């Protein structure tokens, strides 16, 4: 190849190479994951026993808010952007992303956005304390003065996401190798194309919501102030119009990762490729018309409740198609259970459980009981942690040999998996019981009858947190001292263009487009 990477720090600051930027995204999201995880540990430590032990309630509220914001915007979204940067050009036979300098910008504004957000914790008045959904008027009239930093942080993070999405769309639509039609693309590229469209459609809505907050707080408008002719419920509509597609933005790339890993280790092609594409598109479409199922208790007319209830349940159909396809891919396959496959199988099982509790929550009359309880917390951690996080962990184990040219330690990987899997379920399964028994979320304290399961949940959370340090160790040990490999096709059953380039992947790949059969 013409030249290698630049030397020193300039390689990273001025990076335009999709692999370098992908690497930075992955490390950044892991750093944010540890930060958000540390906040979660504080939350679970306080909830270990009833009563107030470690922190003050005000700080507890800041912890739950920051945990949610950091995990959603700092850990899960960037990790998939990092995977997209690394893998999509290699999967579609492109030399790089379509807009390398924009790519650099969209990464490098992220640390500034999150610095603004995290710095609020050290300011007078403390960080945002109104929950990650920042409902008005908690986030406007009653917000701490640092809320403006939060708003600008969200603006920056949103701008980064939009630029990243434009880049991914431009890459996938224009830089595919000759002969690679859309319906020949790997599922991961497909899921990211759909995700990028979702991001472009709803991140500006989030920006609009925080801009209206900014104006209400500083410029005397009354978008969300009932006393001034506005309506706080309007905030919830705008927020969830963003927020519901957002949860699919988080999970759809995970579907793509699953559709890459499961066929590899089942040694069979993905079952029902085209139905996977259509199901993903259907989920994306439905995500725009179901937002008010997050607001069944605001006082909607009966017709509204019924519509949002049935529309929400409809999402189970395309999601069921996907789960069916993954299971059918595994059916009668020559399956081996390397670490990525273990995480993938756990994903299918646990994500399905999370989907079923989602169906329970979709039932409007039942949701009036469940809403804002720990049942909701259990539900979305089953889809966020066992869904998005397990799949990105699987993706790292799956592709790290290709990235580094070194194999991770399989035993250590399996230890990481089993500790994560058991600890995850110990943490979150009891939260279903707590929620059904009536424990509300977002409180620093709880009644005595919830004590036992909270202690179990906290013990699980500490173990889960520790197992992620094991993950960090595994990744570093692989990079530094992993067994060197050079087979382009790292896994016996792997298919796709990324497995035709040398291992480790050279700095520049596909400078001349590959031939597609």
């Amino acid at each position, binding site marked *: 190849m013409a030249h290698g990477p630049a030397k020193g720090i300039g390689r990273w600051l001025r990076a335009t190479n999709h692999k370098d930027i992908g690497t930075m995204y992955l490390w950044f999201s892991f750093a944010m994951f540890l930060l958000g995880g540390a906040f979660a540990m504080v939350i679970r430590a306080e909830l270990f026993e009833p009563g107030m032990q470690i922190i003050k309630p005000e700080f507890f509220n800041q912890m739950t808010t920051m945990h949610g914001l950091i995990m959603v915007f700092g850990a899960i979204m960037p990790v998939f952007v990092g995977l997209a940067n690394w893998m999509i050009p290699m999967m579609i036979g492109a030399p790089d992303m*379509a807009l390398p300098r924009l790519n650099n910008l969209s990464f490098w504004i992220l640390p500034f956005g999150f610095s603004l957000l995290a710095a609020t914790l050290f300011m007078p008045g403390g960080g945002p304390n109104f929950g990650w959904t920042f409902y008005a008027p908690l986030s406007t009239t009653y917000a701490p003065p640092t809320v403006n930093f939060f708003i600008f942080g969200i603006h920056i993070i949103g701008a980064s996401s939009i630029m990243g999405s434009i880049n991914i769309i431009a890459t996938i639509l224009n830089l595919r190798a000759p002969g690679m039609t859309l319906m020949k693309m790997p599922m991961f590229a497909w899921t990211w194309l759909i995700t990028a469209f979702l991001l472009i459609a709803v991140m*500006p809505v989030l920006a609009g919501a925080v801009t209206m907050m900014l104006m209400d707080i500083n410029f005397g408008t009354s978008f969300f102030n009932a006393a001034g002719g506005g*309506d706080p419920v309007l905030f919830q509509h705008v927020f969830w119009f963003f927020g519901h597609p957002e949860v699919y933005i988080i999970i759809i790339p995970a579907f793509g990762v699953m559709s890459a890993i499961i066929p590899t280790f089942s040694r069979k092609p993905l079952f029902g490729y085209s139905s996977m594409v259509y199901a993903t598109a259907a989920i994306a479409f439905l995500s725009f018309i179901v937002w008010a199922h997050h607001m069944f208790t605001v*006082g909607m007319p009966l017709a509204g409740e019924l519509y949002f209830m049935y529309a929400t349940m409809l999402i189970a159909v395309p999601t069921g198609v996907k789960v069916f396809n993954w299971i059918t891919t595994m059916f009668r396959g020559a399956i081996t259970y390397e670490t990525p496959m273990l995480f993938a199988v756990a994903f299918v099982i646990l994500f399905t459980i999370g989907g079923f509790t989602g169906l329970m929550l979709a039932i409007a009359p039942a949701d009036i009981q469940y809403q804002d309880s720990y049942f909701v917390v259990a539900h979305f951690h089953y889809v966020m942690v066992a869904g998005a996080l397990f799949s990105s962990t699987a993706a790292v184990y799956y592709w790290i040999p290709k990235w580094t040219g070194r194999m991770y330690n399989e035993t250590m990987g399996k230890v990481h998996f089993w500790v994560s899997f058991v600890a995850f379920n110990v943490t979150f399964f009891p939260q279903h019981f707590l929620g059904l028994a009536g424990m509300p979320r977002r409180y620093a304290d709880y009644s005595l009858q919830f004590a036992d399961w909270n202690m179990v949940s906290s013990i699980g959370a500490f173990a889960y947190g520790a197992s992620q340090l094991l993950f960090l160790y595994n990744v570093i040990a692989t990079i530094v001292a992993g067994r060197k490999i050079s087979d382009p096709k790292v896994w016996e059953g792997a298919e796709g263009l990324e497995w035709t380039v040398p291992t480790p992947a050279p700095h520049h790949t596909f400078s001349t487009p590959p031939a597609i059969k």
Partner: protein
Amino acid sequence: MVAKNPVRKTVLWSLLAGVTMFGFAMFVMPPLYDVFCEITGLGGKTGGRYAAEQPEVDQERVVKVQFVTTNNSAMPWEFRPLTDAVRVHPGESHKVEFYARNGTERDMVAQAIPSVTPANAAQYLQKTQCFCFDQQPLKAGAEANMPVVFFIDPALPPSVNTVTLSYTLFDVTDRQSAAVTARN
């Protein structure tokens, strides 16, 4: 130029989509929500001046109507209801007054914005006369009693026994536009 560079074309279209969605959230969703609430009666906003014929009085039923006032954070006037609550028969007209005093040293103009709780009672509280239909100028140090004449529509849902009418007072001295008035 655009046709020669397909990447640029994709980027321009995506950017346009993003900007459109921002505009949609900022400038379309709030008015759309207002229209939706007006049609369905959600959101607690009352109608304009009631001009049609008054319905018959329902002597059987008594509804409590409470009055609360709020000052917008930028509004220094003293503003309060002279009556905190009244009990009325649906269909029967009532007049209540609100007291306002401009304690500042400059002439000001105010605009009151009404809101009704519970939301499903909003479209049944009818006003035949209200200071909120107009802007209220007060000279420096001046005071005024501002009247509202209203009745409760007998069609008020039977589950509602108490209706709260709230006014928020805004300083509109600096803006001559009638935009605020149009929304009451």
